[in-house]
C-alpha cells in the first residue's frame, strides 16, 4: 500500500492538489496506485534497470574512464497532461518554432526585424553563434531549425513558461520513446485504464520531415554522429535504426566537386540530407575549427552550393541564446502578428541601465545568468547565496553588465517519484520536440526530466537527473 502523497508547501504539484487529493486527470492513476504494493513497484524497478542495461539505453559520461556508460534513473510515476492543456502547449510550441524559423531566415536575409528596431543589431550580429557564411543562402522550405527542443517548466502559479529554446542539436527524444516502451511493458494494465496518446511514430515523422527537407526525390538521408564516445551516442544509433538510415561518422563522408559522398562497399554514394548531431564548429575543418577530426572537409561549400541539406542548418545557435530569448515574444508579434501563447520567464537585460538598476537592487531575489554560460556556470542564485557571493557578483556585473541577464527565481512544479518510503515530490521540467518540414508538427508528449534529489532543481542527466514517461491523455480517464 502506498502512503498518500502531498504537494510540497507553497509549490505546485502535478498530481496532488492537497495531501492525498489527486487532481482530476490523475484520479484513475491514484486509484490504481493505492492498490499496488511497494514490493511490486520495487520488483518492476529492478526489472526496468535490468532491461535498460541489457538494451544499452545509456549515456556516456565525459571526464570519466573511457567508454563509461551510465543508466539514466527512470521513474515509473507518469507525468500526466490532460488533452486541453496539451492543446494549448501544442499551439504555443508550433507558434514559437514558426517564429524562430522566420527570425533565422530574416537575419540571414533582409534583417527586417533589426531594421524595424525590434531587436538591437549588436544582439544579433555580434553574437558568437551568428554565422556570416549563411548570409543570403536560400534553404529549402526556408527551414533552419528542423528539430527544436523547447524546455518548459510550470511555476507555482500553475502556468507554463518557456525556459529555453534548443535549436542546435537537442537530445533526449530517444528516452521519450524508450520510457513509453518500458512503461507499456511493466504496467500494461495502466494503458488499459487510460487513453495515452502514442509517441512511437516520432522517428517516422522525423524521417518524413528530413526527406521533405530537400528537393531530391528519394533522397539519401544519413545521421552524422561524433561517434560512439559521444554522450548522446545511444540516441544517434537509436534514431538511425528507427529511420532505417545510415549512421555515419565524419570519416565515412567526403566531398568531391561540391558534392557529398559516403564511402560504401559498392563505391561512393551521394548523400542528400545530413541530420547532423555535431555542432557548427566541428562540421568542416576547412571552414571552422581546423583541428576537428569529427567533420567533413568541404562540407560547408557543398552546403552553400545547395548540394546537401543540413538539419539543423548552420547558424541556428544565434536564436537560442539567452540574450535573444527575451525577444521571442516580440518575434511572434512581428512575424506572425499574433499574441504569444506560451509565456517567457520575465527577463532583465543588464546592459539596459533601467534593468540593471532593478537587478542590482534585487540581487538577493533573482537568478543572474551569463549570456553565453551553460551548464550552471557563471550563475548567481540570489536566494541561495551568501552576502559575500552577492557582493562579488555585483562587482562582476558592474564591470560587464552586457554579459548578464536576470530572472526571478521560479519554483519548478513537482511530480511524485518512487522513493524508498513510498512516493515524494521532486521538481521536473518538460522538453517536447518540434519538427519543421513543409509543415510544423510534434508528437503528443516529450521528455520529462526529474531532479531525483529532494529539493534539487537540477534535472540534467549528467548531474544525476532522471526521466519519467510523459502522458498526454486523449480524453478524460475512464
Amino acid at each position, binding site marked *: 500500500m502506498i502512503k498518500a502523497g502531498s504537494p510540497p508547501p507553497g509549490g505546485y504539484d502535478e498530481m496532488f492538489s492537497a495531501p492525498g487529493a489527486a487532481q482530476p486527470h490523475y484520479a484513475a492513476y491514484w486509484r490504481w496506485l493505492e492498490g499496488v504494493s511497494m514490493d511490486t513497484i520495487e520488483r518492476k524497478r529492478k526489472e526496468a534497470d535490468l532491461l535498460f*542495461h*541489457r*538494451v*544499452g539505453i545509456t549515456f556516456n559520461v565525459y571526464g570519466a574512464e573511457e567508454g563509461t556508460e551510465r543508466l539514466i534513473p527512470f521513474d515509473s510515476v507518469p507525468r500526466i497532461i490532460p488533452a486541453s492543456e496539451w492543446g494549448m502547449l501544442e499551439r504555443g510550441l508550433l507558434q514559437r518554432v514558426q517564429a524562430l524559423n522566420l527570425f533565422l531566415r530574416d537575419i540571414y536575409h533582409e534583417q527586417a526585424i533589426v531594421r524595424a528596431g525590434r531587436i538591437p543589431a549588436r544582439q544579433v550580429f555580434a553574437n558568437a553563434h551568428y554565422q556570416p557564411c549563411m548570409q543570403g543562402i536560400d534553404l529549402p522550405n526556408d527551414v533552419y531549425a528542423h528539430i527544436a527542443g523547447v524546455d518548459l517548466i510550470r511555476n507555482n502559479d500553475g502556468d507554463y513558461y518557456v525556459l529555453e529554446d534548443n535549436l542546435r542539436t537537442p537530445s533526449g527524444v530517444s528516452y521519450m520513446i524508450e520510457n513509453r516502451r518500458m512503461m507499456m511493458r511493466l504496467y500494461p494494465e495502466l494503458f488499459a485504464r487510460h487513453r495515452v496518446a502514442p509517441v512511437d511514430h516520432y522517428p517516422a515523422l522525423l524521417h518524413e520531415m528530413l526527406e521533405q527537407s530537400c528537393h531530391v526525390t528519394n533522397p539519401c538521408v544519413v*545521421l552524422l554522429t561524433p*561517434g*560512439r564516445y559521444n554522450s548522446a551516442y545511444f540516441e*544517434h*544509433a*537509436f534514431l*538511425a*535504426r528507427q529511420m532505417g538510415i*545510415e*549512421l*555515419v*561518422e565524419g*570519416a*565515412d563522408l567526403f566531398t568531391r566537386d561540391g558534392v557529398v559522398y*559516403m*564511402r*560504401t*562497399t*559498392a*563505391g561512393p554514394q551521394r548523400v542528400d540530407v545530413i541530420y547532423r548531431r555535431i555542432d557548427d564548429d566541428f562540421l568542416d575543418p576547412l571552414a571552422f575549427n581546423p583541428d576537428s577530426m569529427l567533420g567533413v572537409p568541404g562540407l560547408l561549400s557543398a552546403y552553400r552550393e545547395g548540394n546537401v541539406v543540413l538539419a539543423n542548418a548552420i547558424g541556428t545557435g544565434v536564436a537560442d541564446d539567452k540574450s535573444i530569448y527575451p525577444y521571442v515574444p516580440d518575434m511572434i508579434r512581428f512575424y506572425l502578428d499574433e499574441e504569444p501563447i506560451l509565456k517567457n520567464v520575465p527577463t532583465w537585460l543588464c546592459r539596459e541601465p533601467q534593468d540593471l538598476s532593478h537587478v542590482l537592487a534585487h540581487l538577493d531575489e533573482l537568478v543572474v545568468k551569463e549570456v553565453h554560460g551553460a551548464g550552471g556556470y557563471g550563475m548567481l542564485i540570489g536566494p541561495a547565496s551568501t552576502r559575500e557571493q552577492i557582493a562579488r557578483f555585483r562587482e562582476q556585473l558592474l564591470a560587464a553588465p552586457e554579459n548578464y541577464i536576470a530572472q526571478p527565481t521560479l519554483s519548478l512544479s513537482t511530480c511524485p517519484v518512487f522513493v524508498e518510503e513510498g512516493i515524494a515530490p521532486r521538481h521536473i521540467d518538460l522538453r517536447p520536440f518540434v519538427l519543421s518540414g513543409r509543415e510544423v508538427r510534434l508528437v503528443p508528449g516529450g521528455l520529462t526530466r526529474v531532479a531525483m534529489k529532494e529539493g534539487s532543481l537540477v534535472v540534467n542527466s549528467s548531474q544525476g537527473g532522471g526521466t519519467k514517461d510523459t502522458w498526454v491523455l486523449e480524453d478524460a480517464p475512464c
Partner: protein
Amino acid sequence: MLSRTASELYWMSRHLERAENTARMLDVAWNLSLIPFAATVDEEVAAPLKISGTWDRYISRYDTVQINNVMHFFSLDEENPGSIYNCIRSARENAHAVRGRITSEVWESINATWIELQSIRRYGLIAMGASAFMDWVKERSHLFRGAAYGTMIRNDAFRFLRVGTFIERADNTARILDVKHQIHTGVGNSAVEYYRWNALLRSVGAYEAYREIYTDRVTSEHIAEMLIFRAEVPRSLRSCVEMLAELLPSVEGEAGMDAKRLVAVQFARLQYGDISHVFEVGLHEYLTDFLRRINELADTIQSAYLELV
C-alpha cells in the same frame, strides 16, 4: 552499405567466432588434462598455445605450461589480446559502433554477453567452473548466431557478418587439425590415441558426425578427410569456403572481383580435392598452404570492401 559498417560487422563476427573456437579448444585441453596420461598431457595442455600462435607471449608471462595458467590465459586474461574476454570485448565494441545497423536482438545478445562476462570475471573462472564457462561461451555464440540468422534481413550487412564467421572458422579448423595431427601422430598407444582423436572431434563439435559418416574406428586419415573435404560437416574447410563462395559473389558492386576470384579457386580445390593427394604432399604442408590462401583471401576482402578509400 558503409565500408566502416561492413568492417565492424565482419570483425564483430570474427571476434565472436574466435571466442567460441577458443572455448572449444580449451575444453579439449581441460578434459585431457583430467585424464592421467602423464607423459603426454603437457603437449595437450600446450596445444592451444601452438594453435593460436601465442606460445611466446605466454612463456614471457608464466614460467611453466600448467593447465590452470593456460586456462586463465585464454579465458579471462586481459593481457592476452586473443583471450575470450578480449574477443568478446572487441566484438561488443564493434557491435556498439554499428548498433544502428544490427537488429536490437543481435545487439542485446552481445551486450548481455558482455555484461555477464564482466560479472564472471569478477568472481573468477574457478567459481564458475571451467567446463561451465566453456559451455556458457558456446551457448552465447549460438545465441548470437541464432539472433543474427533469425532477425537480420539478407542484405550486405548480413553477408559481411557471415563472411567474418567463415573466414575465422576456416582458419581455426585448419590450425587445430595441423597442430593436433603433429602431436597425435606416432603415439603408438591406441588407448591414448582413441581419447585424443575423440577429444579433437568433440572440440569441433563433430564427434556425432564422425560416427554417422564413418562408423568405424577413428583414424587420422578419416578425421583429416572429414575436416577438410566433407561438405556435410559444418566446420570443415570445404563447408566454410563453400559458404564464402556463395556469399561473396552476392555482395553488391564491382569492388571485390579479386576476392570473388580467389574464393572460387579455393572452393574448386576443395570441391575436387581428395585426401590421398593431401597425404602425398603432407598434411602439414597442405594445411600451411591452405592457411596462406585463406589469409590472402581475408586481406583481399579487407582492401576491397572494408578499408576507407
